[in-house]
């Protein structure tokens, strides 16, 4: 099943490679003019155009790009001066760590709230849940992000300064996974772990709040449906303990649509993290790609889109596999 799923994902990845290449070239920016610097003359710009290979024809540039790609070379970023692969390797873990923390926070809040709301539809808890979900859904992340910085850092001084992944005078742990929370533990440095955890708090809250709504809604809806179904009624009629009915029978069955939502939510979180990363000076790939687009730095933009496409493919694969774990029937049907 894994192999077949991977094979179906391949055409998508190829499409992504072609489309990003073309879109990038269709952008009106002129990287040579941009990088010629503040005292550019037309000759200087021409020299740079040649250096960057931008004077070649489009098919030629594409063939060169594919050849490099096959060798695992995504090109050089002009804005950081580093190979794009190195940049992405350094930055993807930062984004994933943040998005995962946001998702976990959202789950920790949304699942209980959703279940609670579903078991008492129309009650006060239900209304509060709905209010919370609507709020989280309707506030743009840049707004919640800035409000959190303003209130929790600027006014109250509770949260640490929005200065990226670590406090100023800390040096990052030795890279194993790239996630500071894990790497600092592997390095047996609790102080560093705490520092990284503190820096994560505000951005995690921002992302968690944004992801709250869809998960809560989906949990509540799915639970309502399942609780009203025949097998739950039968289970109850047979005198099973309410707790067993709720968790063993109802929740497990309600998890399927929730897990589908999780895939979407994580993708959404990686998307909005562009904004969150900007506010919290988080060195993730979202901020990186944005910077590159502004500078018409092609290589990182292509690398970013390709990486994101691969992450999505992996994510969807993971979710498909999770289906099988939660509901064995899915495996049989496929």
């Amino acid at each position, binding site marked *: 099943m894994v192999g077949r799923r991977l094979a179906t994902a391949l055409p998508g990845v190829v499409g992504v490679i072609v489309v990003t290449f073309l879109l990038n070239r269709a952008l009106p920016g002129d990287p040579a003019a941009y990088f*010629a610097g503040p005292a550019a003359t037309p000759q200087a710009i021409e020299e740079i155009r040649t250096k960057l290979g931008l004077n070649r024809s489009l098919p030629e540039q594409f063939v060169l790009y594919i050849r490099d790609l096959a060798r695992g070379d995504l090109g050089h970023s002009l804005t950081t001066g580093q190979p794009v692969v190195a940049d992405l390797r350094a930055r993807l873990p930062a984004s994933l760590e943040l998005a995962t923390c946001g998702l976990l926070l959202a789950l920790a*809040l949304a699942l209980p709230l959703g279940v609670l709301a579903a078991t008492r539809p129309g009650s006060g808890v239900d209304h509060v849940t709905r209010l919370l979900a609507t709020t989280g859904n309707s506030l743009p992340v840049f707004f919640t992000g800035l409000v959190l910085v303003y209130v929790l850092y600027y006014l109250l001084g509770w949260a640490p300064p929005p200065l990226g992944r670590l406090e100023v005078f800390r040096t990052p742990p030795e890279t194993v996974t790239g996630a500071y929370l894990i790497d600092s533990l592997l390095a047996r440095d609790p102080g560093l772990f705490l520092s990284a955890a503190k820096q994560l708090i505000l951005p995690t809250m921002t992302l968690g709040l944004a992801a709250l709504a869809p998960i809560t809604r989906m949990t509540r809806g799915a639970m309502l449906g399942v609780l009203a179904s025949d097998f739950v009624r039968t289970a109850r009629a047979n005198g099973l303990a309410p707790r067993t009915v709720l968790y063993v029978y109802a929740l497990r069955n309600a998890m399927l649509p929730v897990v589908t939502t999780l895939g979407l939510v994580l993708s959404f979180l990686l998307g909005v993290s562009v904004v969150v990363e900007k506010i*919290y000076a988080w060195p993730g790939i979202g901020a990186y790609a944005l910077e590159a687009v502004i500078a018409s730095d092609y290589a990182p933009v292509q690398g970013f889109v390709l990486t994101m496409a691969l992450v999505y493919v992996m994510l969807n694969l993971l979710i498909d596999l999770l289906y099988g774990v939660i509901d064995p029937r899915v495996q049989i049907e496929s």
Partner: protein
Amino acid sequence: MRPQWWKAAILSAIALLISTAMAIPSFSQDRSDTLLVVTEGGPYSMDIHGVGANFQVYGVTWNVYDRLLTYGKKTMPDGSVSYDYTKLEPELAQRWWLSSDGTSVTFVLRKDARFHDGTPVTAHDVKWSFDRAVTVGGFPTFQMNAGSLEKPEQFVVLSDHSFRINFLRKDKLTLPNLAVPVPVIFNSTLAKRHATPTDLWAMAWLRNNTAGGGAYKVESWRPGQETVYVRNDDWKSGPLPKIRRVVVREVPSAGSRRALIERGDADIVLDLPARDFVELARQGNLTVIGTPVENAMMYVGLNAKHPPFSDVRVRQAVAYALPRKRIVEAATFGRSAPLVTPVASNTFGYDPKMSPYTMQNLSKAKALMAQSGFPNGFDTTLSFNAGFAATNEPMAILLQEALRLIGINATINKVPGAVWRGALLRKDLPVILNVFSGWLNYPEYFYLWVLHSQNSAFNTSSYQSPEMDKLIDVARFETDQKRYAEQVREFINVALRDVPILPLFQPSMDVAMQKSISGYTYWFHRQIDFRSLVKN
């Protein structure tokens, strides 16, 4: 029905919130001799000679490398300190003299100077560095050429510690141009070790590494995140800096940067919107210093090559219709020096009395429009760089309003930042808002870039006038101070008559810092010089 596990989940969520509350900023330790600077962006490279060296690279170069010469300092009327472009002082060169016939200059290098890795600094390093600057092409080569430094043959090693530059021509910018960030001295022994047959100048290695002998070393550089500097305790080319360590963190959000400086977590903040600096200055618990950027000008450019603005009367009409005062106020909230003449206020030749356009004069503007080839007005577009919309947009709207009063209907055209320079290079935009600044504070240097028909990228108005060219070319190499002053007056008058660019204001280099910081110096490259800073 109150299951245990969701209680646990809610409790853990609450615990997370509480831990937020307990996360008290905990970096009081180790801060007295360390400086935290927050900026919007960071360097793209460590090598000022490389492709894509941005403004922040000037800053790295300035602190990490030495030059032969540097500039003196002066105190400004408001008490702040600025570099002094009229005074050259020793840095790596202990002394220097012109040959008696004035065709060369000889430098004697410090004998005790060492690069960061301990290698002695020699004249061979100087030659290698200068050869590199004039050979690699692009920005460094053009900057060297601005001071008539063009060929490797000009640079002669006399001995390990003496070095000569042969002049191609008498150029008063030759010596001042040695004190800008480009002609820095590289550790050529170290650099050559990383050169390859296809990369003789070690461009690839020096992009990510430094090979300097300046007051600071780069301890770590994480592109897009931070640059950490540590003092070079063996620095000999000047007094030992007070600050031991400098962390420059990139914080892209202006709101976050402002919060950091106001909370006292950052020591110095750069790149805030003008309005923030105005408010911070008013609050009074931070030091806010704004210096009008030398030889810089925000201007309205009118395309002198394409109709309708090829008609000089139309351009003059626009000059008379310009509501300069309102535009400047709306864009900079008072943090700028308004300009009526096309010369910056702290540049030689500045005389606001020369301008006939000091006040908006609509009747004159309308009369000129009536005499022009376009008595009934026309439609046009007004373009600006959307990357600086906070400043540019209010200016564009006020300008659009004023143009309408004299029959010109301008559509506003916001050009995305990445496209802007390309759009300027095509030189077909009729009206633009743009800014230009020259490192060297000489009016003819500005005019050479902006209004000379050699047509550099910055002659955005496509202005071409043999009369102007002649005046600039003569003034560049004029040695007689009295004649020079006349020439400057003359080319300013030509610019005022032909009005290809209408000056608006001189932008301000603003910086906010904690009261405990002193010793800030304004530099033409608009980067922070850590060497003079003191933290109490």
